[in-house]
């Protein structure tokens, strides 16, 4: 059933469970709707007044409907306990060790995604509101902090290595946004004043996505999923999933580019 629902191509490990749940729920919905529908159409034809001049005071006496309702409740309970609760527990509790994962901070704002990598030392450099500059330092990163020297920041460009867990720490500078990765079956509100972690394991590279969609230019996208102002519609970010080598190379490139920029600021 999940293949018939028109979902985006699946690109994460936990997403398979979500798709399976969606499939089963939609089967339940379809069976109920078709079942009720057949009953309904039959009934309005069979009991139209021309064919049924006198109504039956008592009507339905059998208890089929109670058994069906009981069955539906049971099926819902099975979906809830067997699929829904365990999947949510996995998503919320089974975080990988940070040392085994790609760790990223994403700080949303009106209307862009600030991506912050901790760099080789694995530690995020300090940020400060006072250092914040909308153009040159949207994260307020304190470059004088030794841990910040190797941090990498981008705007709207998230890169991740395939088949390796990723932990994203989400927050916002201004209003509630929501970090959505449709193919990854990831969605998490980014709430100012809170840092909310989300994790997943990407299983499809951008190259593989391009093959599936037969489009050499398509990319994974970050979609904002909470009304955040007049630019909500254009808060599109880009996710690239690549091999570990490609990812390391990209990180190195970005580091070099940002060192160069930092170097340009030296005026002595």
């Amino acid at each position, binding site marked *: 059933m999940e293949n018939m629902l028109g*979902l985006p191509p699946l690109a994460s490990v936990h997403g398979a469970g979500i798709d399976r749940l969606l499939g089963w729920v939609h089967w339940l919905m379809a069976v109920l709707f078709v079942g009720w529908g057949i009953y309904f159409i039959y009934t309005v034809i069979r009991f139209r007044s021309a064919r049924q001049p006198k109504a039956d005071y008592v009507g339905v006496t059998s208890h089929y409907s109670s058994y069906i309702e009981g069955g539906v409740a049971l099926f819902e309970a099975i979906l809830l306990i067997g699929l829904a609760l365990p999947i949510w527990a996995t998503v919320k509790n089974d975080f990988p060790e940070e040392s085994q994962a790609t760790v990223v901070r994403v700080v949303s*704002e009106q209307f862009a995604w600030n991506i912050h990598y901790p760099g080789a030392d694995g530690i995020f450099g300090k940020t400060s*509101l006072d250092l914040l500059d909308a153009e040159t330092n949207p994260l307020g990163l304190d470059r004088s902090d030794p841990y910040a020297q190797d941090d990498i920041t981008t705007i709207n460009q998230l890169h991740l290595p395939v088949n390796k867990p990723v932990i994203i720490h989400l927050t916002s500078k201004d*209003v509630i946004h*929501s970090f959505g990765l449709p193919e990854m079956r990831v969605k998490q509100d980014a709430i100012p004043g809170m840092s909310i972690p989300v994790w997943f394991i990407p299983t499809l590279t951008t190259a593989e996505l391009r093959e599936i969609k037969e489009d050499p230019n*398509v990319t994974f996208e970050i979609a904002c999923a909470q009304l955040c102002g*007049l630019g909500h519609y254009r808060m599109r970010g880009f996710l690239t999933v690549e091999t570990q080598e490609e990812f390391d190379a990209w990180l190195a490139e970005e580091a070099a580019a940002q060192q160069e920029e930092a170097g340009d600021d030296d005026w002595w």
Partner: protein
Amino acid sequence: MSTHGDHQEMSFWRKYIFSQDHKIIGLQYGITALFFLLAGFTMMMMMRWQLAYPGQPVPFIGGLLGEDNAPGGIILPEFYNQLGAMHGTIMIFLGVVPLAVGAFGNYIVPLQIGAPDMAFPKINMTSYWAYFLGGVIMMVSFFVPGGAANSGWTSYPPLADIATMGQTFWLFGMIFLITSSLLGSINFITTIIQLRVKGLTWMRLPFFVWAQLVTAFLLLLAFPSLEAAGVLQLMDRLLGTSFFLPSGLVVSGQILEVSGGGSPLLWQHLFWFLAHPEVYVLILPAMGIVAEVIATNTRKPLWGYKSMVYSTIFLGFMSFVVWAHHMYLTGMGTAISAFFQTTTMIISIPSVVILTALLLSLWGGSIRFTTPMLFALGFLPMFAIGGLTGLPLGLAAADIPLHDTYYVIGHFHYIVAPGTIFALFAGIYHWYPKITGRQLSETLGKVHFWGSMVFMNGIFMPMFVQGLAGVSRRLWDAGEQYAHASGVLWTNEWMSISAWLLFVFQLPFIYNILRSLRGPKVESDNPWQATTLEWATTSPPGHGNFATPPVVYRGAYEYSVPGHEADFLPQNQPEKG
């Protein structure tokens, strides 16, 4: 002026404008609500232009929208967001609930319980005028600098806290509207408990009255949290508090000078504590109307009346413990989400029981396909689609890809639009003869029904497709920016055309209502040959409703009783000696 007896002749103002008569007040609510429904519909039609043809100037009226809202007739994202927030607000709080509760409830409930009026006629009048004022404040907000509220009908902070002046108007408007509902709910509860005539025991009440009773409790107990939240948000906006504003906010590169330390999630809890019961306020009166129309037009009792009553009460109770299913993605853990998923799954049971009882009520009936019956029948599968699509949303893991997408919009619109609004149409066709003493044209009614049925589905069915593909809601350009949306955006044009054609098919309805006022008087006070007490008096009922208070001898749906020649036994008809 609350007892019948001797009156001085009342002035026009006392009789028709500042009336304390529940029938006049009901009509005031009804006419006002229908105008607001039209206003909300018009806003939607404008939004649907922008969604079908993003960036294209709106034809005919584009120039009238103002350069601030739509330069060159092209709707700006700011204005689109105003239309979105106000469409939702107006439809729910100024349209559907005032029509379902303020109009139908006020007019019909006292009649169905044999009472001369509501228990508190002055409070009744006050509640209408509070609604009217709230509505004026809401509409005026379009004309203040920055325009109307634009943070969704949900008004989440920090966005709503820092939004333009229109949000302040929204908050003041809501305070008036909530006050109106609270006053009304006290009236309904007291009236139904205290003013039932002799013989009208609880289990002989028409289901419509039960539905209005539970609805009144929902309004009474749930609205205070939004009233409080609204005051808190007003204080954040006007008095420098930070109930909902955390520390360290930076907007457009500037540090926000607020005290901080607040919580955006606090608003969400207070808001949804009302807004979830609110959706049952939207559906219960509609189910009540459908039940009345089905019993009358099948000529047999409702099947499972008792289970419907108990389910309605249980539903009302459960509606208070599911609210955070709107908040699954706010960082909720496993324990709390397990609680809310469980309560949400449980609450689907009484809904299914009520729908099943209505469906089973048809079996064995002698079905007359009058216009009210067509709308009541149409309600059933449409509500089924709406209710069923709530299932994946109610399970947190399945909600992850569907949250805040068009799937949600499709889900709730199926329930409210071809759901509740169809039931309200059924009610208008059903009770028009009682209210006006005239009949609506069946031919125009059937045109209204079939056109509405087709085009409601044309608008809302494709939304599930869009939502499953990942298209977010509240996007000015319908999601054009996103590659994952590209395969499904072609549906927008058809959805918009359906919306405009849906409007066209409301024209015969409007014409029918107005023209039939001057049609021939209906001879019978009870043209549908129905059993409930409103049909046991004149059309329209006079002041005080009943010449002498009726006495009730039987249940509300004694149709086709074996051993009786007539196929209906009115509730107030004495047993033969």
